[in-house]
Every structure is written in structure tokens, then in C-alpha cells.
């Protein structure tokens, strides 16, 4: 894999993503809400101290970052494949894997860069109000970057396996809804009606990468059971703080690896979604990739 090709494909992707404008606008909204949260003068209201605001802020990030990552990923492959632009790019002296990773690098670069700018701005409010230590904030920022990389991988996977831009966008939106809303509702309902035990509930929670990120962030901020809930409380008691962090980080790494592996397989040679190759041609996987 040649760095020159990676760098230029990444440059092209970054330029395209920035000029589409919705990513910078999305971040502006996200961090604008974050700043509002910090400056809403909620601190004098009883228990709603800086710690709580920090928690609310990271919940906001856990909600917004997957949306942006998934949608940015969904636009990476399917639209260009549908319009023939990906094929055109592949008629240049490049390897398909260079195009794939160049796209990933460019998109992640923009998402991560804008995230760091926003985090830098909100860090001032965070420190001014004493929501936590600088180290803790840095840890959250690193976790946020991880969440972006994971969400982007999922989005690219959806895009690589979709025949059209419409399906890729729909798939990414569906996945966002599932991770951010539906899984919460299903877990709540199941916990209420099936009377799930704390270990089962915790296990089900770790199946959702966004929930894993949330739990990881919250358990770093506080050990209060009224915030963490019984399932995480059980896990803390069983695994200890470092064990819990290790488990959740591992879960996020597995999700990330799986998402990007799926994306790469779906990209194949770049020409069409991998699932369309076998039934139509009967050629072997080795011949295709």
C-alpha cells in the first residue's frame, strides 16, 4: 500500500465531506448544545451539579457522534459506486485496498479533526465549572474518537454492502435508531416484563457499542448506583473498575474490528457489493478479491 495514494484519496474524501457541509453543521449543533448545557445555569438547582452536567454532556456526545459517523460512512462508497465515480477512480493506477483505506482515512480525519476542535472549545467550559479533571476529559476525548471510528466503520460497512445511496443512507439511519433508541426501549421493556437479572441485563447492554461507550464514560465519572444502574453496579462489584473498563474497551474493539472487516469485505474489488458477486457469476472469492 502506497502512502502517496492513501494521502491523495484521503485528501479527496476530506474535501468532499467538508464541502457537503452537513458534517461541520452537525458538529456545530452538537457542540453548541454542549455549550448551552454547560452555561444553562443549572448548577444552583439542587443536586444538578457540574458532575451531572458532565454526565449529560457525554450522553449528548454518545447520541450525536454515532449519527455523524454512521452517516458519513454511509456516503463513502455506495453513492460513488452508483454513479460510476468509484469505477473511474479505480481505473487510475491504484489498488482497491488503497482506495478503501484512503477513503476511511480522509473521512475519519475530518470527523476526528472537527470533534477535537469542538472538544477543545467545550473543554474550557468543562474546566471552568469543575466538571472533572483534565485527565478524565482527555480520556473521554480518546473514547469519543474511538466511538467515531467505530460508527464510521459501521457506516462504511453499510455503504459497502448497499447497491444504492438511498439504501446505504436508510441502512445507516436504521442502525442509528437501533443503537440509540430501539435497543434502549427493548432493554427497558425486557427488564420490566421478563424481570431480567442484573448479569443478563449487563451482558445485553454490552452487545450495543453505543451503550458500551456510555457505560464506559459514566463509570469513569461516577460510581453512584443511581446513575449507573443495577446492572453496571453488579459488573463493578464483580469485575472492579479496571476489569469493567477492560471488558467494555474490549467489546468496543471487537465491534470496531468487525465493522471494518465487514466494510472491507463488502468493498471487495470496489466494483459492486460483495453479496452480488457470487450468485451472478459463480466466480470464487479469491478470483474476485
Amino acid at each position, binding site marked *: 500500500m502506497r502512502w*502517496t*495514494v492513501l494521502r*491523495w484519496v484521503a*485528501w*479527496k474524501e476530506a*474535501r*468532499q465531506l467538508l*464541502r*457537503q457541509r452537513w458534517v461541520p453543521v452537525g458538529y456545530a449543533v452538537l457542540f453548541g448544545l454542549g455549550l448551552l448545557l454547560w452555561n444553562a445555569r443549572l448548577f444552583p438547582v439542587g443536586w444538578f451539579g457540574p458532575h451531572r452536567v458532565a454526565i449529560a454532556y457525554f450522553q449528548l456526545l454518545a447520541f450525536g457522534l454515532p449519527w455523524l459517523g454512521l452517516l458519513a460512512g454511509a456516503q463513502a462508497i455506495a453513492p*460513488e459506486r452508483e*454513479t*460510476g*465515480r468509484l*469505477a*473511474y477512480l*479505480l*481505473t*487510475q*493506477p*491504484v*489498488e*482497491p485496498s488503497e482506495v478503501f483505506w484512503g477513503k476511511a482515512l480522509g473521512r475519519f480525519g475530518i470527523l476526528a479533526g472537527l470533534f477535537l476542535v469542538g472538544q477543545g472549545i467545550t473543554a474550557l467550559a468543562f474546566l471552568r465549572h469543575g466538571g472533572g479533571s483534565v485527565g478524565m476529559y482527555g480520556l473521554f476525548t480518546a473514547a469519543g474518537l474511538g466511538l467515531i471510528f467505530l460508527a464510521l466503520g459501521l457506516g462504511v460497512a453499510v455503504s459497502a454492502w448497499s447497491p444504492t445511496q438511498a439504501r446505504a443512507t436508510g441502512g445507516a439511519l436504521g442502525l442509528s435508531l437501533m443503537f440509540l433508541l430501539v435497543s434502549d426501549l427493548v432493554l427497558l421493556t425486557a427488564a420490566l416484563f421478563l424481570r431480567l437479572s442484573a448479569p443478563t441485563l449487563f451482558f445485553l447492554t454490552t452487545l450495543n457499542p453505543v451503550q458500551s461507550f456510555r457505560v464506559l464514560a459514566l463509570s469513569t465519572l461516577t460510581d453512584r448506583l443511581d446513575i449507573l444502574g443495577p446492572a453496571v453496579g453488579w459488573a463493578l462489584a464483580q469485575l472492579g473498575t479496571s476489569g469493567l473498563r477492560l471488558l467494555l474497551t474490549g467489546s468496543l474493539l471487537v465491534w470496531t474490528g468487525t465493522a471494518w472487516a465487514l466494510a472491507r469485505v463488502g468493498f471487495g*474489488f*470496489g*466494483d*459492486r457489493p460483495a453479496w452480488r*458477486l457470487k*450468485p*451472478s*457469476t*459463480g*466466480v470464487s472469492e479469491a*478470483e*474476485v478479491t
Partner: protein
Amino acid sequence: MRAFIIEAEIRRVVLGGRVVLRDMGLQVRPGETVVIGGPNGAGKTSLLRAILGLLPMEGTVRIGGHDVRRAHRAAMTQVGYVPQAPALFPEMTVGEHFRLLAALRGVGASALSEAVRAFGVSTYLNAYPGTLSGGWLQRVSLALALLGDPPVLILDEPTAHLDRTTRDLLWEVLRQKQAQGVTILMTTHRLEDRVLEADRNLWLEDGRLVSETFEPRWVRLKAWVLRRPDEDWVRHLPPDWQVLRLAPDGLGDSTCVVLRGPWASRWQAVQTLQAGGNVVIRIDWLSDEGEA
């Protein structure tokens, strides 16, 4: 030196459950110009895409001795490609396209500015593709394909979106490239694209190369005529010829006539049209599925 710069042995290409190419062998010598004709849907674009390694297929394609799927990069260093519809990126300016492709092809700054100047696109370097006409887009595509002077040019119906002036420019450029020994592989469904003197003309139908000549079995003749009011000449058309359209063209006194019939008797059809007292202003030859 290799005997063939393009060697394609394509057993089968299936898209969407339909066999689009089958049992096809195509060898092109260095410096040769090969024009492939065929009606819409014959598989011309699929053939070029398979040759470029962009379609999964049963068979092998080598360009410059490199397998297009196993040694894709090495094969593509040999090729400049002009797609049927310009595939420029909408969020990038023309100048950025030149920078990107020059970087990917390892083309230096002087060669880049020479390419920009040669095609007269310097005025549009800051323009986005969406603001350019079809002709200018195709001109940019051609300039991009020629970056780095690749030894093989592959063009997919390059005249499809061009007006006559830009088409003439294209022919001029291609003739220059022919003279420089560049290998040209081009598809078209316009029979008049034979103005480019090809070493070989091939005809593709239903996913197969059906003849080693640029001769379809059926053809459409589209003519603009100043017509006599009677239509007696229609009855004297050669056997199997039929009138598909006979209507004023809305741009003056002329009438647009579209006839369909066997390729072999095409000139008899033209003679009949003229013998009827009609004044023929212009004739276009279209493949059988061309526009009516």
C-alpha cells in the same frame, strides 16, 4: 516487445442475473486502433469495464502483460480511460481533479500544465463539474485520461454527449495519438464514428463479437430532407426497409425521415430516397436501437 498490449479471454460476465458478455477473445496490438460498434445494450460498456478489471468475470484480461485484477495497479498505469458519462466528483473543482489524477499517476507539474493548456481547460480550473456543459466535461475527461501519456486509450462512446465542434476536436486529438503510436480501443453506437481510421472494426451484439467488420445486420437511416409532397418513393424502398418516422422536424421546411432496414442494402435505400425527388440535407446512420 509484447505481441499484444491487450489480451482478453472472457468466458462469461453476468450482471443482475443476465449474461452480458460471453465467449469473447480480443487481442489488440501496440499502436492498433480498434473500434467496437453495436446497438445499445449489446455489452459494449460491459466489455470495456471487464477489460479494465471493473467487473467480476470468468476469464482473464491482461494489459501490458499485467492481469487487470491480480496486478490492477500495474495494468492501470498503461491506461487512460474516458467513460461514457463523465464521472467527475461534484465537490471537486476541475483543477483539483487534475491535481488528484496527476498525483495518482505520478505526473509532474510541467506535464500537468501542458495537458491543461493543450485542451484549453485552464479557464475552468476553478469551476465545479456541475457548472460545465456536457462537451466541456468530456473534454476535461479526455484531458485527464491523457495525463502521463498512457500507451493505451480506452474510450466508451466518447462522442455520446458531444456537439459537432467538440467531436471534431476529439477526432483530431485521437488522430494525433494514433500517429504517436498510442493504442486506442473505443466503443460507439454511432456508425458515423468511423471517421476515425481504425485498423479493425468489430461489431458486438447480445454480448458476443458477431463480426470482424463494423457492419450490423440492421441499420437505421435518419435523414433531414426537403421533401416532395407525394410519398411514392416509399413504395420503391428495397425489400425489408420500413419507414419508422416521417414528420416535420419543427425547425423550418425540412422533414425528418427515419428508415430501418438491412445494412447490406443501405445505399439502395438512400438512392430511393433521393430518386423520389427529395433533397437530402443530411444523413446520420444509427445502429438498430438508435433514437428514432
